[in-house]
């Protein structure tokens, strides 16, 4: 499903060269739930951003869904993200000016051939899946952290993506809410067969996944 070969990411300034990722080779199969762990600054989030096609690697190749994506144009990358990927961020990244349902609908705005009614119907279904169908007209700042993250999950799944990339999804939540969000992701993986890659610091959460990849200083250590 995801095949990373010799991935490198180097940040260069006039005086300093920082190697964020060095020779990363990872294969993730369809339907797998993988956790990426490691100390702060080890390159986990950078790797996730590269997998999410939000950032380009300095070297190496990425094959996703049997497609070489490293050479795609900006427009095609945007289309690929829209059709195949869903994101869950640590700080939710909901748009405060939009209601819950409008936030959830957002990925479908950029998909051709979906009517307003269809968007609304699918957003309601997604919100129902995460248990927030009663909060459709609320705004993000009227919700708790756990609820916001559930809205973010609904937004990530509305387009039925094959891959969900979650960057410390429970990092800002207390243990009960974190547990709730984790269970939701496990359920998605189990029932829908969605491939999930999750960056986390939380070993307990990581242990619930099928595989843990450890990172240290920009390198994969296990």
């Amino acid at each position, binding site marked *: 499903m995801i095949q990373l070969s010799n991935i490198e990411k180097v940040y260069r300034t006039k005086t300093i060269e920082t190697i964020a990722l060095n020779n990363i080779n990872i294969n993730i199969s369809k339907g797998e739930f993988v956790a990426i762990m490691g100390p702060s600054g080890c390159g986990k989030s950078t790797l996730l951003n590269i997998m999410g096609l*939000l*950032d380009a690697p300095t070297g190496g190749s990425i094959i996703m869904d049997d497609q070489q994506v490293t050479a795609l144009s900006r427009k095609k990358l*945007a*289309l690929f993200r829209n059709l195949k990927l869903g994101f869950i961020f640590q700080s939710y*990244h909901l748009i405060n000016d939009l209601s819950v349902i409008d936030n959830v609908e957002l990925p479908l705005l950029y*998909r051709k051939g979906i009517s307003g009614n269809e968007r609304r119907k699918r957003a309601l279904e997604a919100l129902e899946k995460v248990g927030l169908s009663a909060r459709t007209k609320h705004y993000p700042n009227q919700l708790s952290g756990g609820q916001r993250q559930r809205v973010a999950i609904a*937004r990530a799944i509305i387009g039925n993506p094959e891959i969900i990339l979650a960057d410390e999804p429970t990092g800002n939540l207390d243990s009960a809410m974190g547990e709730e969000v984790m269970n939701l992701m496990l359920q998605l993986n189990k029932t829908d067969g969605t491939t999930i890659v999750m960056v986390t610091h939380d070993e307990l959460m990581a242990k619930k996944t099928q595989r843990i990849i450890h990172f240290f200083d920009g390198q994969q250590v296990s």
Partner: protein
Amino acid sequence: MLRKKYYTALTLLGISLTIMIITVFASFIDQIISANPPEINRDRTLILDKVSVYKDGKKTDATPSISFLQKNIRDLQSTEKISYFTNREFISFLNGKTTGHALKFTDENFWKITDFEFTEGKAFHINEVKNAARVAVINEKTKAYFFNENEALGKTFPIQGLTYTVIGVVKSASPFSKIYSDVYVPYTTDINIQLTDKAVEGTYNAMLLAKTNDLRKVRSELRARMKIKNTVSAVDSVKVQAFTSLEQFSKSSSFNDDEPEYGKTAIVVGIVLALFLLIPTISLVNINVTRIGERAEEIGVRKSFGATSGNLVKQLVIENIIITLTGGLIGLGLSVYASQLLVHFINTFDPLFKMPTDSFIISWRVFGFCLFSCLLLGLISGVYPAWKMSRMNVIYALKGGNNL
């Protein structure tokens, strides 16, 4: 837009003031050159207001006399109607107050070339002109001054010591127009007319309504007529100048007193309008850069979920156009008050002669032009910041990158 109240208010203020200035400027030009009622035939109405006499290699310009006009241009084949008029002023004393009034001496054809809306009575006829009848057509401002809200028809008022009877009341023409006056009376009652009877030089203008839109025909006939009918003795040649309002405006704005130069006029008007638009556009671009910059996180989220740069530019530009159109509509509303304020300001320079406060009329043409200016303003001031923002690195945007 509603969340960023400060930037929205600042943007709306900038746009509305810009559009207000453009509207006043455009309606001023519109009233000078366009065929608005009562000057519905403006496109083919020429004003002959200058006669040039050449003698011993020297040129002398003057306003023609009525006798010169009547002798030389009365029966032009290329014209449908010809009217003569001169502008004077008179002072009235009423209720201890001294007021000045614009007075126009003219003939029956004046009312046929123009299309005044009469609220009372009618225009004077050929017989009243022939008989030098002391009858007057007044505008509503003058009616209100002399007769308040009562009917003015048949009532009398003094002009230069003589009593005139009101036979008609019209809606006011634009004070920027050649046909504007507070009071219109037959030219045959002009007591100063005899003084210039035999001379070339006088105080009268002719208004020529051409048969077709080909005004060159009229001018060429006038030139030929001056060659044949040179009744002025002891001069080498005589030339007359007859131009439409648009041509007159073109002559003055292209700094050429003799011939209209549309190219130069377009450049001058274009530069003025560009300056009116350019300065606020630059300010708006700056405001938009900051305003859109504050939405970096949102842009990052939208890009993460598949928005292309094109999607984002479209969204941001449409938002900008909506805000610009809102500002533009406020500006159009403000321009009504601004024009009245301008008239009050102009009126302070002359204690006697007052322009009507509704002198600026915003026509559909001006309205359309201003809406177009709004769209242009919205497009220009929105495209650059939107394009720059749409190219922002997603990771940087998600972190709320606060500059471009």
